[in-house]
C-alpha cells in the first residue's frame, strides 16, 4: 500500500477512555474480579428469588445442622438456613460498601476540588483538617463514630463514609491541582467560563479515572469495615442477616458448628478479593506506568 493510500484513509483515533477500557478487557485478573463482583451483585439483587429459605425463619427441629442436601451451608443456632442468610447478607455488605463510598465521594470530591482549585488559606485549612482525620486510623474512627451515632446499619454506613472521606479529599485535591494547569483548563478560563463551570465541566471529567480506581478499592475496605462493625455489634442488628454479625454469633459455636463461621467469612474474602482485583486492574488500565 502506498503512503498516499494510507494517508487517504480516514484517521481513526481512539479516545483515552476507549483505550483504557480495551486494556481493562485484556486484563485477565481484573475480568475475574469483575465476574466475582457481578456474581455477588446478582446474588444480592435476586436474593428473594435465589435464597432457598426465609433468612429469618427459625426452626427448632433443625438447630446447628451440618451442611447437607437440604441445607447446603448448614443451619445456625436458631435453625435458620446459613446459605439463605449468606445470600441476604450480601445485600447488607454490598449496600454498605457502595453507600459509604458514595457518602465519602459526595463529601470528599467537592471539598478536595475546592482545596485544589482555590489554593491559599482554603487549601491550607482543608489540608490540615484532612491530615487530622487521616491521623485517626480508619477503623478506630469508624468505631468511635458508630459508637456515638448508635448501633445500626445506616449509622455504620455514615461512620464508614465519614472515615473514608479524607482519602477522597486528598486524591481530588491532588488531581485538581495537576489538572488546573493544563492547557484545556486555561483555554476554558480564557473564553470566560465561570469558575464553577471550569471545575464541573472541564476538571471533574478529567479526574474521574483515579477517583474510580480509589472508589473500587475503598468499596473493598468499606465491606471489611462494615463486617467488622457488625461483628462488634455496631452494624446490622439481628435478626437481619449480615456477614459480620453471623461471624459474631458463630464464634460461640465453633466446636459444635464450624460451618456457621466458614461460609460468611469466605463470602467476605471473595467479594473483597473481587473488588481488589478489579481496582488493581482499573489502575493498570488507566495508568499503565503504575504496573
Amino acid at each position, binding site marked *: 500500500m502506498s503512503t498516499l493510500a494510507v494517508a487517504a484513509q480516514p484517521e481513526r483515533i481512539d479516545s483515552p477512555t476507549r483505550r483504557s477500557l480495551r486494556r481493562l478487557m485484556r486484563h485477565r485478573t481484573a475480568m475475574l474480579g469483575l465476574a466475582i463482583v457481578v456474581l455477588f451483585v446478582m446474588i444480592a439483587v435476586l436474593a428473594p428469588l435465589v435464597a432457598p429459605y426465609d433468612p429469618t425463619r427459625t426452626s427448632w427441629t433443625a438447630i446447628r445442622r451440618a451442611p447437607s442436601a437440604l441445607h447446603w451451608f448448614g443451619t445456625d443456632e436458631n435453625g435458620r438456613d446459613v446459605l439463605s442468610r449468606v445470600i441476604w447478607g450480601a445485600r447488607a455488605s454490598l449496600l454498605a460498601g457502595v453507600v459509604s463510598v458514595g457518602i465519602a465521594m459526595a463529601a470528599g470530591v467537592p471539598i478536595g476540588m475546592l482545596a485544589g482549585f482555590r489554593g491559599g488559606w482554603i487549601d491550607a485549612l482543608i489540608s490540615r483538617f484532612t491530615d487530622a482525620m487521616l491521623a485517626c486510623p480508619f477503623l478506630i474512627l469508624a468505631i*468511635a463514630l458508630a459508637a456515638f451515632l448508635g448501633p445500626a446499619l445506616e449509622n455504620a454506613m455514615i461512620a464508614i463514609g465519614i472515615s473514608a472521606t479524607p482519602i477522597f479529599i486528598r486524591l481530588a485535591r491532588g488531581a485538581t491541582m495537576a489538572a488546573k494547569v493544563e492547557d484545556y483548563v486555561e483555554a476554558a478560563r480564557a473564553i470566560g467560563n465561570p469558575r464553577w463551570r471550569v471545575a464541573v465541566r472541564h476538571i471533574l471529567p478529567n479526574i474521574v479515572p483515579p477517583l474510580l480506581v480509589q472508589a473500587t478499592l475503598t468499596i473493598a475496605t468499606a465491606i471489611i469495615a462494615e463486617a467488622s462493625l457488625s461483628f462488634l455489634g455496631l452494624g446490622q442488628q439481628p435478626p437481619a442477616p449480615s456477614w459480620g454479625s453471623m461471624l459474631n454469633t458463630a464464634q460461640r459455636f465453633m466446636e459444635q458448628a464450624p460451618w456457621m463461621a466458614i461460609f460468611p467469612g469466605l463470602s467476605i474474602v471473595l467479594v473483597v478479593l473481587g473488588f481488589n482485583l478489579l481496582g488493581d486492574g482499573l489502575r493498570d488500565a488507566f495508568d499503565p506506568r503504575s504496573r
Partner: protein
Amino acid sequence: MAGFLIRRVGQIIPTLLFVSLLIFGLQQLMPGDPALILAGEERGDPLVLAQIRAELNLDRPLHEQYVLWLFNVLQGDLGFSWRIREPVAKVILEKLPVTVQLGLMAFAIACLIGIPAGIISAVKKDRPADWVANGVALAGISTPNFWLGIMMILLFSVNLGWLPPSGYVALTVDWRQSLATTIMPAFVLGTGIAAVLMRHTRSAMVQAMNQDYVRTARAKGLAERIVVAKHALRNALVPVITLGALELGTLLSGAVLTEQVFTIPGFGKLVVDAVFNRDYPVVQGVVLVVAVIYVLLNLAADVLYVLINPRLRHA
C-alpha cells in the same frame, strides 16, 4: 537536619490541634444528655443533674468547654471513666503494654514474611513464584483479620489442641505462656501488614534491580546473591522501612478486632467494652491516644527516611 526537624515538628502542631477539635466534636454527636446517663437512677433530681453538668463543664458555652478540655488533655488528664470510675489516662496506660507486645510481635512476623516474599517476588518477576506471592498477598489484604483469627482458633485450638483459644498471660509472669497466648493473635494481626510490606518490597526491589548500579555490579561478575542482597536490597529497603513504621499505626486498628476475637485485655478490647458500656470519655481518650501515636509515627517515619538516606541528610 535540625532545620528539617524543627519544620516537621512545627507541621504536626496544627494537625494535632485539628485532631483535638475532631475528637472533642465526637462528643457532640452523642445522643441525649451525658448528665442523664451519669445520673442513673437520680436522673429525676434537677440538683444532681446541675451538679454533674457543672463538674463536667457542660453548663458552659461550647468553645469554653473545648478550651477547658484541651487544657486538661495537655496536662495528661483525659477525663474520668464513667464505668470503671478511674482516670481514663490510667486505664489506657494499664492496657497499652498488652497491645504494644501484641503489635511488636505482629510487626516482627509481618517483616519476617513480607520482606523475603517481596524480594523473591521481585527477583523471580513474572514467574510462578511471583504469581504465588502476589496471589497470597492479595488474599492477605482481602481477608478480614477477625475471620482469620476464628479460622485459626478452629484449626489450632479446637481441632489440634496446640494453642489456647483465648486469654492472655503477661511476659513478666510466664514468658512461655505469654508467647503461647499471643502467637496466634500476633500472626493474625501480622498477615495483613505482611501483605502490604510484600507489595512495597516487591515494587522497590523491581525498581532497584533495573538501576545502573545493579547492572554495573552484575557486569563486574558478582554473584547474583550478592547483587541482590548487597546492592539492590540495601537501597530498596529505605522506602520499605519508612512505610513499615506507618504500618505500626495500622496495627492499632487491627488490634481492636483481634483482641476481641482472642479475648486479650488490651487497648482494642478496652475501646469495644467502652463502646458497649457507653463509656464515652474512654472512647474519646483511646481515639486521641491512637491519633497522637499515629502522628508521632508519621514524624518518626519521615525522620527515619532522612536519617537512612545520606543524600537527603546532607541536602
